[in-house]
């Protein structure tokens, strides 16, 4: 596909957006997993959150 003499600018623009968006998504997914794991570890140790304790 011929994108003209300035094709590089077009590719780099789209690539930059792709990289940043992918990076953001990656960070969000990894962070989510990290928090969920920490939460699980704490719950295994028997620590209750106040709201679940009072709901019982």
């Amino acid at each position, binding site marked *: 596909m011929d994108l003209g*003499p300035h094709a590089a600018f077009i590719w780099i623009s*789209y690539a930059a957006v792709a990289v940043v968006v992918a990076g953001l998504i990656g960070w969000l997914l990894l962070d989510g997993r990290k928090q969920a794991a920490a939460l699980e570890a704490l719950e295994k140790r*028997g620590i209750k959150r106040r709201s679940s304790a009072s709901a019982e």
Partner: protein
Amino acid sequence: MQTLTQQLANPTRFMDLSARVLPWVAGIAAALIVYGLYLSFFDSPADYQQGETVRIMYIHVPCAWLSMMVYGLIAVSSFGLLVFRHPLADVSAKAAAPIGAAFTFLALLTGSLWGKPMWGTYWVWDARLTSVLILFFLYLGLIALRAAFEDESAGAKLTAVLALVGVTILPIIKFSVNWWNTLHQPSTDFTATVDPSMRWPLLVMALGFTLLFFAMHLKAMRNEVLRRRVKAMRTQAVAGRDRLATQPAE
């Protein structure tokens, strides 16, 4: 019947709802962006002036739009925190800031790359790019201010005040930048008028990016809710260490 924001005030409720909604938002966003990319490259014409580089517009404009929309969202969340004490308002503001800053940066980057073949330089002090640059500084200020406080509650409220000050002064900044620009460049108008044949791909991409942001924002909010739970539980663990040691776990 409670309003949506009232229903979402309960973090647990929010987690349930967002877990169900998120895959849909992400899926539709992906579909729209794929469709938009197809349209941008294969179903829209080259500009008679700019040639193919007009295709950069299809990602630059959505990024620029998001940079402003997200700041507005942060302002609304900040208002919700300070005036209504909505429990998730700060979570929303905190989650949105880095994502908004990233899109603002992308708006600047793509704007610069669009400008080089068009105007010959990588940076031009036109009204729009300059306004986006200052908006970037406002985002950095929000992130830096929050990071400077160990007391999360104080950091949250102060960042909210800054966000509201920022949103109040933003129209004045844009007005002053426009003024400054017309002073120094009275003739050139860098705004590319959008040809009708390009409006549809632009709309699709803008919509896709907006949904993409909301998917990321929901995920970031979920992460933040989890982070705060973890922190609260760790505090309890430290406080109750004696209790756990002397009594059997329930």
